[in-house]
């Protein structure tokens, strides 16, 4: 048995060295300042695009870029640990996509105390909580999710001619991004009295749950004419449920984020539209702004990034 443990230990040690060795090689490419980008997760296409944008800017400006994220999108505590470690590592600027609008505030305050500028991307920080804690954010770079939800709502209202029954697939309850999209959508619907929201359920951002939950909604409300899903993953699950019910093309489906699979579905006509943000642009702007801050220049408090609806007509 000792032999077995020894082999395991050796294999584990060797692979650890191999992996960390590779990481080192990647990180110490340039001699300039080090900027950190802390994202919600590394396994969502949206954040992968953001990372690519940041990497492009880092390469152009010849700065070191450290990209880290928690494994799960809602793991605020893990994100906080990452930021604490980066402060210890003395990076010159930290760009964060907060996993929680309030929960991230203590981490921002810590960075402030260490004199490291903090840039916020994509998801806004709760301003009241930030002010109460005495924290400071150099700039916010992002799209207005509320506006995105409103655009989706207006599109559905127009397609239905102001009269019809609509269902919503919500994200994880209590998530700032999802709540803003939902709020914007509901506002657009409230402005047109002929439209009725007949079901609004969560599918927790996930594709398989989008399938199940919308299949159930189709059972209880077969008359549903349009669906707004707060992200594309849930919309993509829902269009498979629609296909299984033989109703493809009968229900208007609008998602959010315009991920690759979503664009393809729009091209095929199984999905009608998706709200697109520009994560690549966000990542690029973040590194550029961080670079300016490190060099003593100031940056505007809010840098809006375009948000728009794509449909089959303007897919490319």
């Amino acid at each position, binding site marked *: 048995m000792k032999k077995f443990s020894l082999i395991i230990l050796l294999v584990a040690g060797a692979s650890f060295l191999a992996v960390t060795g590779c990481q080192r090689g990647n990180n110490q490419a340039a001699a300039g300042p080090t900027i950190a980008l802390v994202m919600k997760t590394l396994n969502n296409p949206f954040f992968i695009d953001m990372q690519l944008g940041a990497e492009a800017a880092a390469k152009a400006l010849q700065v070191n870029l450290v990209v880290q994220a928690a494994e799960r999108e809602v793991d605020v505590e893990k994100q906080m640990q990452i930021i604490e470690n980066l402060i210890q590592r003395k990076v010159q600027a930290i760009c964060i996509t907060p996993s929680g609008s309030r929960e991230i505030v203590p981490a921002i305050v810590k960075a402030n105390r260490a004199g490291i500028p903090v840039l916020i991307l994509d998801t806004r920080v709760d301003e009241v909580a930030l002010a109460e804690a005495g924290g400071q954010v150099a700039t916010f770079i992002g799209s207005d999710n509320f506006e995105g939800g409103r655009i989706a709502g207006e599109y559905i209202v127009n397609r239905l001619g102001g009269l019809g029954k609509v269902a919503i697939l919500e994200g994880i309850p209590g998530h700032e991004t999802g709540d803003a999209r939902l709020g914007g959508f509901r506002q657009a619907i409230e402005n047109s009295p002929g439209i009725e929201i007949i079901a609004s359920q969560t599918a927790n951002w996930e594709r398989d749950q989008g399938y199940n939950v919308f299949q159930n909604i189709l059972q*209880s409300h077969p008359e549903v004419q349009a669906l707004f899903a707060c992200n594309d993953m849930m919309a993509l699950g829902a269009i498979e449920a629609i296909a299984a019910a033989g109703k493809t093309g009968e229900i208007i489906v609008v998602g959010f984020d315009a991920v690759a699979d979503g664009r393809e579905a729009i091209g095929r006509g199984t999905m009608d539209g998706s709200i697109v943000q520009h994560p690549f642009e966000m990542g690029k702007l973040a590194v550029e702004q961080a670079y300016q801050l490190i060099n003593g220049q100031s940056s505007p408090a809010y840098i809006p990034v375009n948000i728009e609806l794509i449909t089959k007509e303007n897919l490319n």
Partner: protein
Amino acid sequence: MVPKDFLSHYGRQFGTLIGLLVLMLVLWILTPHFFTVPNLLNVAQQTSINAIIAVGMTFVIITAGIDLSVGSIVAFSGVVLASVLQAGLPVPLAIAVGLGVGLLSGLVNGLLITYGRLPPFISTLGMMSVARGAALLYSQGRPISGFSESFRLLATGETFHIPNPVIIMVLVYAAAHFVLTRTKLGRYTYAIGGNEEAASLSGVNVRLYKAMVYGLSGLLSGLGAIILTARLNSAQPIAGVMYELDAIAATVIGGTSLMGGEGRIVGTLIGAFIMGVLRNGLNLLGVSSFVQQTVIGSVIIMAVLIDMALKKQRT
């Protein structure tokens, strides 16, 4: 003729079966959309993946073990399966690859537990992280989507008007019931869970059969991955999060003891259906997201409490 031991054999399941029937009755009264053939077929379809994974979990828990890695293995098998499908491998071969990845991951668990003498909780906890990381690495964090119609038929097709995933589920349960009640593997699974040392002393090759049980759990996770991938037309590296807890819940609601040595495969099927019916019903009723999770958790606790009370009464 009904066999003499029919009642005592299936008596344990009555508590959970009654629970399921009451739940269905309540939903029937509350919403007209529940008790319809299409909706019941939907419930069966939505339950199938969890039910299939829970079969492996039942074997594992009967040996007094636990398998926390099933959700991650679903993701890993899924992305590997998806990539070989897209590389143009014929569907039967690709399915074999998907099952193979699941089986191998499960066997690694089995080896770590038997030859490495790790507690199942630790080794499968490690595998949960390793397989998830492998899925992310392999797919570079991106979903792999778009497969041929012939593959998708596995989940979207019907045979005799019954969705294929439901048929696969029924076949898996029939086979598992047979294995658990009529074969050496089944008898030894109970023996190991009842008293591992006694089993070993009476000549059971404990290591071999334990490794087989974890291999089976991995294999069925691979099968779950195949259905999930065909159903969604996409394999995602983040798929299957929390599936382990759903499978454990189905098993435990079904009357399998976490202490090992006892449990019935039919009970697990009923347990999986209780969870599936509940999720479906809460959607049909339009219950708010906040309330849903609380209700599901409470039902799990109540089901086990009632089951334990009934068992006490009988003995």
